[in-house]
């Protein structure tokens, strides 16, 4: 279905433009409410359009920009982009609400440190630009469009870390900026090499509503593999897979916590989506031949991220390494090159968004309510004092380890079913089983060891003075958790359309 007016594009751009006026809003409450409303626009549009079609057919904007050498710019909401768009809409809106009490605390803290960051208006302006740019990236249909929105998402997130982050925030912000640009650059080089040779940058035809499958075959044979690899490397850096993961723990641990809750599940997972939507679509053959190596890399990332998470004492850093490990699950699912595995990976984006958003906001609750408490070894016995926070954290860990009744169960099942396919096909059943045992064992271990160290056991010094968090912090978390639990009951709404789209895509 092609929309009569570019609703998707407008829902992304209008909040972005209006947000430019936010620095002039002096009252923090007003700025916050305007922001929540602005973010609710793309969320509502995406949910409404998904509900209208039940995702049975793709929905695209009319082409709103076209150029003979660049191709057509449009926006696409289909069964593949919807899980991401809905997750981004949900998390950014809820965390904007959560930001009110949290940033209140952060501003106070920074005032005590005698630093004067830009005020509420600037915070929310950057927050909205970051959030809507992510939405734009996911909905794009053209490489240049994708790249532009990605760039727009990077700058505000860079500034958010530099202005409001923890530790050596300026250095870490810079590090984040450079790293993500290294990734973006590799992606851009690949894109330019492809686009300039074949004469279009589209990866999806927004007029006929079809992916441009195998577009890369128009390249000279000698170039195909290197262009595909450049694009893959760019996405791997963004996804922070093993080897190029090292920027992530810095950025995600030291960003202001609401921004961590956006960076960690939402931003990096987009690269996983792009692996399917862009890398596979453009280079199906090259992708399939590289897939076994990517599967290995994914398994390595799961295990490595899990091992590193286990060594952390800082809760936010642990979550950051956990995100590395979780990206391994996405990569593994995608590298099976099966509809099941890919659907599992996209669904896991949503499960991880719910789970990791809950966990980062839990970290934020402890920081805001217990005087900047981040060290796990100083926690313990918090559950009797903060039962709701503990329950929300448990639901978060259940999402990332795939325990019912959480959406994570379905994504894990789909990914592992895909892996079983690949394992039989590659004749590597036993080694893959062993690696999965280690990987999933580690994920379960670091999750529930942390749960125990934080919330159970005898009362720690910190727990003595603890009490349940303010409801303004907890309410947005409860809503996120509820969405995860409800989606557990109705996963078919996402799985069914995804499976049919992916089956068609993989069949060529």
């Amino acid at each position: 279905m092609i929309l009569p007016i570019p609703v998707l594009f407008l829902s992304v751009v209008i909040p972005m433009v209006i947000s430019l006026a936010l620095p002039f809003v002096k009252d923090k409450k007003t700025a916050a409410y305007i922001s929540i409303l602005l973010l609710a626009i793309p969320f509502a549009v995406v949910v409404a359009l998904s509900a209208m079609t039940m995702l049975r057919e793709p929905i695209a904007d009319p082409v709103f920009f076209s150029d003979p050498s660049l191709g057509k710019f449009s926006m696409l909401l289909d069964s593949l982009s919807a899980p991401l768009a809905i997750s981004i809409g949900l998390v950014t809106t809820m965390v904007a609400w959560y930001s009110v009490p949290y940033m209140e605390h952060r501003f106070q803290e920074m005032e005590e440190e005698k630093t004067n960051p830009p005020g509420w208006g600037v915070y929310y302006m950057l927050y909205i630009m970051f959030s809507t740019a992510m939405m734009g990236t996911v909905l794009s249909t053209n490489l240049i469009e994708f790249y532009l929105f990605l760039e727009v998402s990077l700058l505000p997130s860079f500034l958010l870390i530099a202005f409001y982050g923890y530790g050596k925030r300026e250095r870490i912000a810079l590090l984040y900026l450079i790293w993500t640009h290294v990734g973006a650059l590799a992606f851009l080089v690949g894109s330019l090499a492809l686009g300039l040779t074949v004469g279009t940058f589209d990866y999806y035809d927004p007029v006929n509503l079809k992916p441009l499958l195998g577009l890369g075959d128009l390249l000279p044979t000698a170039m195909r593999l290197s262009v595909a690899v450049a694009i893959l490397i760019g996405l791997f850096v963004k996804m922070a897979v093993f080897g190029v993961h090292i920027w992530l723990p810095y950025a995600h641990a030291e960003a202001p916590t609401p921004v961590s809750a956006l960076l960690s599940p939402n931003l990096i997972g987009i690269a996983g989506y792009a692996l399917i939507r862009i890398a596979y679509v453009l280079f199906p053959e090259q992708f399939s031949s590289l897939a076994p190596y990517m599967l290995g890399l994914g398994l390595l990332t799961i295990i490595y991220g899990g091992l590193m998470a286990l060594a952390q004492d800082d809760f936010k850093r642990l979550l950051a390494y956990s995100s590395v490990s979780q990206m391994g699950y996405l990569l593994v699912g995608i590298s099976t090159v099966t509809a099941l595995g890919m659907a599992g990976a996209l669904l896991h984006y949503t499960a991880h968004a719910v789970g990791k958003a809950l966990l980062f906001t839990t970290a934020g609750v402890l920081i805001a309510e217990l005087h900047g408490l981040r060290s796990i070894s100083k926690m313990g016995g918090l559950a009797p004092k903060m039962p709701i926070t503990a329950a929300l954290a448990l639901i978060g860990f259940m999402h990332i380890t795939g325990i019912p009744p959480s959406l994570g169960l379905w994504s894990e099942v789909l990914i592992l079913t895909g892996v079983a396919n690949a394992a039989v096909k590659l004749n590597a059943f036993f080694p893959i089983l062993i690696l999965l045992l280690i990987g999933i064992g580690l994920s379960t271990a670091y999750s529930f060891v942390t749960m125990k160290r934080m919330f159970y056991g005898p009362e720690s010094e910190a727990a003595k003075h603890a009490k349940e968090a303010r409801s303004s912090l907890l309410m947005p978390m409860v809503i996120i958790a509820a969405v995860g639990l409800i989606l557990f009951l109705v996963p078919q709404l996402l799985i069914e359309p995804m499976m049919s789209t992916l089956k068609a895509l993989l069949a060529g």
Partner: protein
Amino acid sequence: MNVWAFSTWLVPYIGALLALLLRKLGKVRDVIAVLALAVSAFSSIPLLMEVLSSPERVVHESFPWIPSLTVNVGVYVDPLAGWMALIVAWLSFLIGVYSFKYMEHDPGLTRYWFFFDFFVGSMLLLVLADNLLLMFLGWEGTGLASYSLIGHWFTDEDEKCVGDIGRKALGVPMWFTPSHSGLRALVFTRLGDVGFILGIGTLYYFTGTLSIPAIAEHVGEWAAPLAKSGLLFPFLLAFSLGAFAKSAQFPFHEWLVTAMTGPTSVSALIHAATMVKAGVYFLLRFSPIFMLAAHEVEAAAPQVHAFFATVALIGGFTAFFMATQALVARELKLILAFSTASQLGYMFLALGSAGLIHEFPLGFLAGFSHLMSHAIFKASLFLAAGAMIHAVESKYVDDMGGLSKYMKWTFLSMAIAVLSLSGVPPLMGFWSKDTIIEVAKESGMLLPYLFGVVTAALTAFYSLRMLIKAFLFEESENVRHLVEHHHLHEAPGLMLIPYLSLALASLLIGVVWPVIGPGLLESMVNHVLGIEEAFHPEIHLDPALLATSLTMVAIGMGTAWYLYMTRSGLQVVTSIQENKVLKSLQDFLYDRWYINSIYYLVIVNGFLAVSRLGYKYFDTLIIDGFYHRFIPWITERASTLGFAKFETPIIDETYHNRIVKLFLKVGSAVRKLQTGKINHYLLIFILGLVLILIYLVWV
């Protein structure tokens, strides 16, 4: 829609939700939670009746949920599922009633009832599910509930721990807090579940369906290609890995031991009567299908046999190995926990042997009937133990003694259950255990059979030892103290009735077994999914086998009686403590063959070391160092050095000095030529001309 089938598993879930919603209402919440269990229990009866009276002996109904994965919300109730559901639902209900009193005044009751009912719903879902994923959902749900209930008292007070506080084996602490035990249970069982789900994925890959009856029907589709590539054996092991872990078979047994930190009602329900049987149920459900594979696909037979032999061996070993640990245990609940794992080993032995003998249904029934009889007497034992621990305020049997005087009904109940566990005729436990030893013998595998026989003696010994120490032994200091203060009394009715009635059931069913047994067994086996030929079970006693097993029971019980009830025996017990070799053997058993310690020293510490060292030396030093130290450093060095050694001396020098100087030199040289004298110019001109001419001539 079949109301009974759905209400059996769905109503407990609703009860769980209601318990959460009514959390402010105290007793009302508790009553509602138990009522939900009652509805489930009473629904399971008409459900079973319907199954047994239908011509196909099956109730199968499903509604699509995730069509592309063939996941349905559906039930497939054959006699196996029907009987199992009946047992689970009724035990849950009885233990729910017991909990109502036992958990009174606990501060975490909302959480308790939520997870209790959630567990029952999940357990029944896994029993009744008509497709693999729904079964897996229930399976995982029971794991979550088990995790939460084991760690119910997560503030980890010393008195809630399992093991002797301060005791270490090979330097590894041997006492476990509730939160630690919950974690162990979750991690151990999830390891197995990875294999389970990978197996489900493999089946789906070959058959394109997750429906359990369809997988039985299209057995060739998956068995043939797997058998051909030699993957069938690894596949069967992976697929059943979840069952091994859930049923605490070696090497996954450790979690069940420490699961005893949970409230005793939970130990009775989850860690004795139902959840740990899920692994056995899994084998009951799927081993007939594996047998079909062996029959229909020629290449599959050896691999299927190898699988069953593995199951028998692991089961037999677990039975023996866990029983040895029960011999020396001092905590009442630990004795029962070891015993549970050991009895589960018997069931695995039965099902493993089933696949190796001529009459598969005989082994199937041996496993199934032992599952039922064990569920009944072990639940009774645990519930009674809960009452006793509550009464004497200590978990150690050494702090009991002489209780027969003060808790007569509990003594009666416990004595019956102990006799049943020991396999004394004519109790229920005797019949089911005897069949297991019979099929183990028939399987032709010597080792598992020997394990089975020896374990019979060990079981009789530790059961009677427990009974003597708690009830018949001289009163301990603790008991005397309690009696003086009038604190020791019989359990209240709401607690007593459930375990007494279970013990009596174990007795009565045993007594009438020769009469009702054949009919009952027939209803349990015929028309079970995958068992196609009709089987006519009969109750018979092989005299040689009977003599063997009764001798074993007599040896076990006799030894226990001699050691703990006679003066000379007690001296022997004392002298064991003084003998170095025997004492170290006792420690070896008491510290669980040091396997827990080895797990911690090798696996846990190994991973922790890799994690810490990897973080410190690889992630921080090498990776982080490479990108964020080495690359900036090398860039900076290159820049400084380049500036000092290249930019300044070479480039700068060349352009701004050397070239300038060169030009200056050339200039001055040219200037020297410009002497201003005509004859000099002429000379040069002529010389040049000559050179050009020579060049031209030459070329």
